[in-house]
């Protein structure tokens, strides 16, 4: 996926969910309120892989601390959408 001005929040959320599954998170646990640090039990290497995948797919540079501080999937998706739009 290439980031573009037309990219929608739902696209970002679908991408985030897909990449989380790719790094080992179960599809069933991916609801809006799910917290990345607690509910998804992401291991350290999986977290690095997720970060790299998001950066490559969206053409962005994200702040991993911001991601864990936001914690909830819906908030992370919103943050990523902002980055993808260059905000």
């Amino acid at each position, binding site marked *: 996926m290439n980031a573009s001005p037309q990219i929608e929040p739902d696209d970002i959320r679908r991408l985030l969910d897909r990449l989380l599954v790719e790094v080992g998170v179960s599809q069933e646990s991916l609801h809006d309120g799910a917290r990345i640090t607690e509910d998804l039990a992401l*291991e350290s290497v999986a977290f*690095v892989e997720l970060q790299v995948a998001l950066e490559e797919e969206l053409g962005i540079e994200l702040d991993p*601390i911001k991601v864990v*501080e936001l914690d909830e999937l819906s908030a992370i998706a919103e943050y990523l959408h902002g980055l993808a739009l260059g905000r």
Partner: protein
Amino acid sequence: MSLFRDEHRPFRDEVRQAIRERLTPLTEDLERSGVIPRSVFRDLGQRGLLGLTQPIEYGGRGLDFGYTVVLAEELPRCRMGGVALSILAQTNFFSPLLSRYGTVAQKSEFLAPAIRGEKIGALASTEPTGGSDISGAVQCRAEDDGDFWVVSGEKTYITNGPIADFVVTLVRTRSDGGPNGMSLLLIPTDTPGFSVKQTLRKLGLHSSPTGWLAFDRCRVPKSYTVGKAHLGYYYHTQNLLEERLIGGVCSLALAALVLDDTITYLKGRQAYGKPLTALQTIRHRIAEMSAEIEMARAFVYSVCERFRDGHVDAKRICMIKFQVVDVVQRVIERCIQLFGGNGFLEENWVTRAYRDARVLSLGGGTSEVMKDLVASHLRL
């Protein structure tokens, strides 16, 4: 923009002078005793060298990262890897964590006196039962007790631990394993239950005190939690990148210094009626080492420039941590060979550099772990 501007040059002179006047005369004492006097930290603090990039309101100088690079490049000139490490531990191990995530009260109580050199700090994550795999290794536990954490466990290989006034300590604050549920706590070393179990004897870095620390039900106010509770692992691993980058800068400068001294020695030594530097095998060997250092430096500087501009290039920093370190160790080992028998003498500081450099592929994350991290960045 280049890493260095004109104003970095007089600063380099300033640091070099401070090292020559304040550290070099102490070499024999520090290498023998293994303890850096507090006066060294206070003196460097008074000269403004312990808070180069830290906020001015806490006594820092608010300068750009290029100044830290200059400091890290000049410190090896004291020809004590241990002292360089201990000073960089004060400037770059825990200080950025406090600066970024600490509260105003924490910065006033711990960061500001550390910048002045009045308090010595340490950063503790490694434990006797596990090291580089931080997320799996941390067993040091903090139990929730109202307004306090009650900390029990041990930490080891802690630079400046035996002389520290406080230790920023990575502890587990949730019962589940993995990276989630760790916190960074500021623990003053006069807290009842804290002890230095052992000052560790090492192959090298003799002038830097390294500690095995124990925490026996230490009651730590929750107000001493750095950043948000349970996110300590992420703060720590992000901060480690700066530590690894500046370690790469410093170690490369060490190798360059060893090579310079080796060349000086070879120019003054004769074999077969001419200086050793006239022999083709030696000329080629020096050319190879010089090229390796130059190429590594160009790579390190490029990552430093991006770091200064706010881009933390984790993949390339991990590359530096194993690849540049490999160059450094190889160059120093080859220089020892070029020194001949003189390279085996204790009085030749290059032997000390050889011992000191051995830790570079171990401390701050082993080379093997760095390669794994790079592989993760390559999505292998």
